[in-house]
């Protein structure tokens, strides 16, 4: 059984402690979200898990066959147009040019990009379009493990919901496991089997929340109710410093 197992993970940048004693397991076909305040070390954790950063203390065991990454800042190749950017991962896997382009076009349309955008360079795309291209590039290779770093943060609520639905569908169809970072609690509740709350200074897991109901059955009502519940959780309030923001 493929899985990603993180044990007693610590990480420092220079003398600053960024992550302390992180433990979790992501098993096949599951979606695990990490929520936490900005600068708390979420991106760092994701980079460690994906092998982009070297593990210093503790261990990360990744037995997934393949993985791909959608970066927080997109990281598109500025000299390639939308389709060629999306097709990059497919070409890297040795797929031929015409099949790759075909698949790239299909997924681009599915993600709400229009035919007239296909030949645009990243400099001519909006922030949300860049995000969708980056997300499409990661998803089109059908990896068995997907790392997503705030993939929907620049999208309007309509598009966000549409892409979340696509993500759930594709992950069920292809049995893809996902490690997901988000700031949006409702998004985490809609998508995740488990949510890790990463508290800052240094980043450590303050609490885990699990949701047993399968994603397809989670309607708006479920999401709203669970969100309301979780926002009253003591640890959430403390981590995001919600109480200090109360109007006097």
């Amino acid at each position, binding site marked *: 059984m493929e899985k990603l197992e993180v044990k007693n993970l610590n990480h420092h940048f220079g003398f600053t402690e960024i992550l302390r004693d992180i433990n979790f397991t992501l098993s096949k076909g599951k979606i695990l979200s990490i929520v936490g305040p900005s600068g708390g070390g979420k991106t760092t954790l994701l980079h460690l898990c*994906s092998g*982009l950063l070297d593990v210093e203390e503790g261990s990360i065991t990744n037995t997934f066959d393949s*993985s*791909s*990454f959608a*970066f927080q*800042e997109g*990281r598109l*190749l*500025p*000299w*390639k147009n939308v389709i060629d950017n999306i097709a*990059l*991962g497919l*070409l*890297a*896997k040795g797929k031929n040019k015409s099949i790759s382009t075909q698949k790239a076009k299909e997924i681009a349309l599915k993600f709400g990009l229009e035919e007239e955008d296909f030949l645009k*360079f*990243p*400099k001519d795309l909006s922030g949300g379009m860049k995000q969708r291209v980056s997300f499409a*590039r990661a998803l089109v*290779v059908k990896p068995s493990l997907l790392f997503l770093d705030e993939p929907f943060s620049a999208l309007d609520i309509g598009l966000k919901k549409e892409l979340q639905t696509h993500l759930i569908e594709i992950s069920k169809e292809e049995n893809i496991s996902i490690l997901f970072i988000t700031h949006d609690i409702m998004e985490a509740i809609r998508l995740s089997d488990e949510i890790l709350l990463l508290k800052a200074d240094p980043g450590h897991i303050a609490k885990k929340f699990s949701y047993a109901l399968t994603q397809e059955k989670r309607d708006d009502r479920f999401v709203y109710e669970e969100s309301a519940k979780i926002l009253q959780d003591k640890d959430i309030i403390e981590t995001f410093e919600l109480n200090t923001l109360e109007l006097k």
Partner: protein
Amino acid sequence: MKFILKILKNLPAYLWSGWGAIASILLFIAFWDIGNQIYGNLVLPSPLETFKTLYAMLHSQDVWEQIDITLYRASVGFGLSLLFGSVLGLIAGFFATASMMSRPVVTILVGMPPIAWIVLAMIWFGMGDETVIFTILVASFPIIFVGALQGTRTLDGDLKEMADSFHLPWHMKFIDVYFPHIFSYIFPAWVSGLGMAWKIVIMAELLATSDGLGASLAVARSQLDTPTALALVVIMIGSLMFIEYIILEPIKREVELWRS
């Protein structure tokens, strides 16, 4: 192939945009004519006379031979700088130590006046092709070297990481990730290197050889034949403008469409 077609397709529109340039050249010629009326024919022959001389020269076999000789020297010198500058610059860029070690050498090469190189080359190689080619090489090599070095040094670490995360094979990494970035630095360096080569070839010929355009210029000077001298200058400038605006600029435009 598709690429070349695209360049050709966009060429008319590009040329059309050249009207402004033509207007400014005509204005320049007008001032030139005023200068002629003030200072007289010996100091500054009129544009008309110059172009007549030019026309006559272009019909003479001998002038074309001189142009050939100069072109040959310039191309060999520039070709060598292009090759060595690009390759060594790339290598130096990939290794931090190499790029640090190369800095003083580059400073010396850039700082040394070409005229000093010509003198040294004349002592080392005598009067002939080698002297000219050597001088071009030392003058335009550092420009290209620095361009290649900068291009390699400034590669985006984030994009490299992205390429690793998608397990790009090495040839894709080079063609799709490194090359376009490096090219956007190295190509302008090639263009300036070429301009430099063209200037240096004339200067070196003037001082160190008995043939080529530069030497013809020296002869025109000694005979106080100003129209011929100016006609030669027009040939030099005209050919450089042709290469730069008709050949290089359209290529650059197509290759750099992705830039804002």
